[in-house]
């Protein structure tokens, strides 16, 4: 309770977006970005749950070298569907479609996104894609790996590839529409006074994310369309027996799917860039550099895809170029981490749950990022490629990074979304459980990978068992860490203490309006006169800024 508002218990506003209308129709036909965000929240949670159950089954199965639970075929389906559900239907839409949808108009002082109907359409597209994919899971499952490599997926697999491919293809358009909507909204709908360099970093990272969604997603769509046609009509785009090239599939696939990692991590970096200044009560260190780093990651991220093919026989020169470019991505990532560290320095740091998630994010992202360099490094990659080292690395980035950011963001903005506070003590405990469980699950997998355990193995030599048992033990802790927030956040939506408009307090525009906000977001269009994360010249926040600090433009960079 350290940083809650000093005011006495607040009450919910009389009219807000949640009670504006009632009934299923008012939700399914809404064009309010906040309600659509909640629709997304519900549906991505469903997929997170499905993917999570598959993950638990995978870990239980791997307790013993022979495999504990299921047959080889079922195991292959489990990890494939885990990947598909988590990547395409949870991680990619999670932060942008839930938090981004809810917050971007609020943060820039707009009444809604530029194309509200398109926004609703994107959710329906997501749902239709999801239904196809679920149908694939029920009607025999998918066993090609989420990477869907040809010719295994297009010719040899006996599982329900076509509906899954159609589902992922359709889902891609949801991503495209979201990215398009964000990009146009950020460009054209900022409130008066809200210049580019006054935007919250969350908006910057979503801008970068939108660029990737717009440029990358169409490519995966056409790739999957070609693969789907190849499977359905026995064509030969990627089948070597008919003259096609399986490596072409990999190039097209990774041209999207590598940048897609940045679709997952950039928004999370945006969340952390909000949390750290807020809970250190200090401007974000090197704001312009952090913003530039976001764009740099999005741009360079498009030029590194072939590092997934270092051992697939690409030319040595291509390998050198892609290794070099992959290392370059490390620089803007490092710049971000150092700037977050510097923001902590001489701050006024609180232990609130979102801050715990933010610091947890930094720790896990640093490990994930550093181990990414092992994979970018040609000499090491020939050994660790396609082993558990890779599995551990991308879970550190995508679960340790993206999901920690997502949960941190959910906690931070939960008072804004629901108008109520979550139980602070329980939340801190579960953040710590999550962090510990995560490391226990995935750190041993680095060692397993270096020892040479290939990924996607339903059975493994006995010498690898110790680390697998550790990992499974960690997974059970991790599962608790995920279930707790699901439960208490739902509880808080109804029974939590009323938060008031700005409980932390934070500087963003979204905290200037009521919690939960009215349907139109703001009673009058706000005018922005302050710099981002400025706690000194904001008497409205009710904080004790030392008077000697209250001068505009001090210590400029």
């Amino acid at each position: 309770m350290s940083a809650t508002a000093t005011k006495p218990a607040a009450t919910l506003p009389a009219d807000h977006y949640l009670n504006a209308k009632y009934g299923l129709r008012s939700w399914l036909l809404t064009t309010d970005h906040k309600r659509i965000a909640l629709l997304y929240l519900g549906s991505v949670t469903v997929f997170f749950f499905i993917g999570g159950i598959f993950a638990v089954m995978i870990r239980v199965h791997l307790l013993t070298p022979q495999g504990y639970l299921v047959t080889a075929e079922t195991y292959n389906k489990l990890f494939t569907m885990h990947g598909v559900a988590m990547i395409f239907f949870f991680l990619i839409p999670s932060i942008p479609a839930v938090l981004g949808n809810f917050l971007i108009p609020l943060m820039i002082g707009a009444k809604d996104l530029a194309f509200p109907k398109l926004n609703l359409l994107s959710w329906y597209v997501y749902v239709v894609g999801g239904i196809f994919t679920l149908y694939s899971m029920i009607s025999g499952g998918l066993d090609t790996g989420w990477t869907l490599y040809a010719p295994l997926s297009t010719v040899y697999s006996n599982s329900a590839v076509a509906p899954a491919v159609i589902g992922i293809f359709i889902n891609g358009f949801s991503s495209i529409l979201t990215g398009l909507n964000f990009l146009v909204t950020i460009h054209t709908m900022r409130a008066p006074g809200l210049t580019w360099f006054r935007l919250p970093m969350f908006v910057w990272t979503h801008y970068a994310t939108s660029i990737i969604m717009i440029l990358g997603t169409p490519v995966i769509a056409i790739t999957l369309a070609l693969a789907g046609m190849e499977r359905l009509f026995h064509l030969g785009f990627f089948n070597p027996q008919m003259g096609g090239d399986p490596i072409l599939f990999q190039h097209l696939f990774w041209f999207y799917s590598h940048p897609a990692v940045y679709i997952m991590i950039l928004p999370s970096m945006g969340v952390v860039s909000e949390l750290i200044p807020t809970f250190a009560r200090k401007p974000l260190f090197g704001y312009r550099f952090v913003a530039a780093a976001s764009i740099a990651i999005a741009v360079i991220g498009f030029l590194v895809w072939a590092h997934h093919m270092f051992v697939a026989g690409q030319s040595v020169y291509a390998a050198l170029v892609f290794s070099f470019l992959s290392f370059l991505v490390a620089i803007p990532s490092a710049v971000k981490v150092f700037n977050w560290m510097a923001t902590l320095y001489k701050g006024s740091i609180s232990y609130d749950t979102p801050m715990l998630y933010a610091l947890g994010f930094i720790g896990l992202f640093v490990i994930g990022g550093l181990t990414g360099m092992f994979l970018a490094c040609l000499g090491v990659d020939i050994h660790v490629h396609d082993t558990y080292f890779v599995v551990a690395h991308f879970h550190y980035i995508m679960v340790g990074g993206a999901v920690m950011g997502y949960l941190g963001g959910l906690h931070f903005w939960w008072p804004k979304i629901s108008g109520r506070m979550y139980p602070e003590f329980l939340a801190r405990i579960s953040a710590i459980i999550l962090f510990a469980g995560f490391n226990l699950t995935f750190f041993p997998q680095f060692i397993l990978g270096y020892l040479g355990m290939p990924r996607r193995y339903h059975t493994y030599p006995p010498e690898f068992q110790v680390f697998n048992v550790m990992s499974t033990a960690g997974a059970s802790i991790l599962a608790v860490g995920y279930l707790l927030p699901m439960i208490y956040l739902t509880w808080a939506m109804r029974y939590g203490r009323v938060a008031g408009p700005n409980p932390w307090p934070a500087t963003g525009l979204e905290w200037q309006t009521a919690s939960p906000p009215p349907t139109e977001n703001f009673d009058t269009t706000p005018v922005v006169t302050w710099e981002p994360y400025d706690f000194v010249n904001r008497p409205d926040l009710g904080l004790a800024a030392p008077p000697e600090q209250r001068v505009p433009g001090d210590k400029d960079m």
Partner: protein
Amino acid sequence: MHRTGELYGQFETLEQQREASSLGMWVFLITEVMFFGGVFLTYTINRAIYPAAFGIGSNTLDLRLGGFNTAVLIASSFTMAMAVWASQTGKKKLIPLFLTLTLVLGSVFLGVKVVEYAQKFEHHLVPGRSFQIDAHIENQAQKQELEAAFAKDPDLNAHAQLYFSLYFGMTGLHALHMLIGAGLLLWLIRESLRGRFTPQYNTPVEVVGLYWHFVDIVWIYLFPLLYLIDRHK
């Protein structure tokens, strides 16, 4: 969000609304470029690997029909541009006229495409079990040409199927875009007959115009790639 006049609730001014719509369409067209880019890349790579089969494939296409269609589409781009001009200058009667002309030209294009597709069906040139690259042979010259190609590439039948897969894929995708464009035109014609478009508010005409020009440009690339390379008759 409710609409006041032509201003949708989420926007502050008509100017902002116009800017957002037009930027939105440009961004959408960028995604379309990337979308078509994937197939163009696949086509280019395969064309480079199997020049003989793709050459034979190109030669089965009817240059007259393709050329006619290209002219039709360019003309439709012109009428579309005129419709946009009419809406910007407030010539309310001309807007539906030019839009209808565009729609007619677009329909002519699709009709010719149907004729071309039907020919391919008759000639056993649709990828699948009944595909036969030599089924359409009519004269000695064609036969010799095919034999020469078979000598270069014994797997010609499979590789020519690759060409026709891409031919149907690319032109089919393009035709799908034309159909969507035709639907948008129908809607525009209805709205323009109601006199909705004025010099102050003509964003829909402008934005659909952008889309229509883009679809034309795609064809301008498809035509030489599919019809003209390795042409020798």
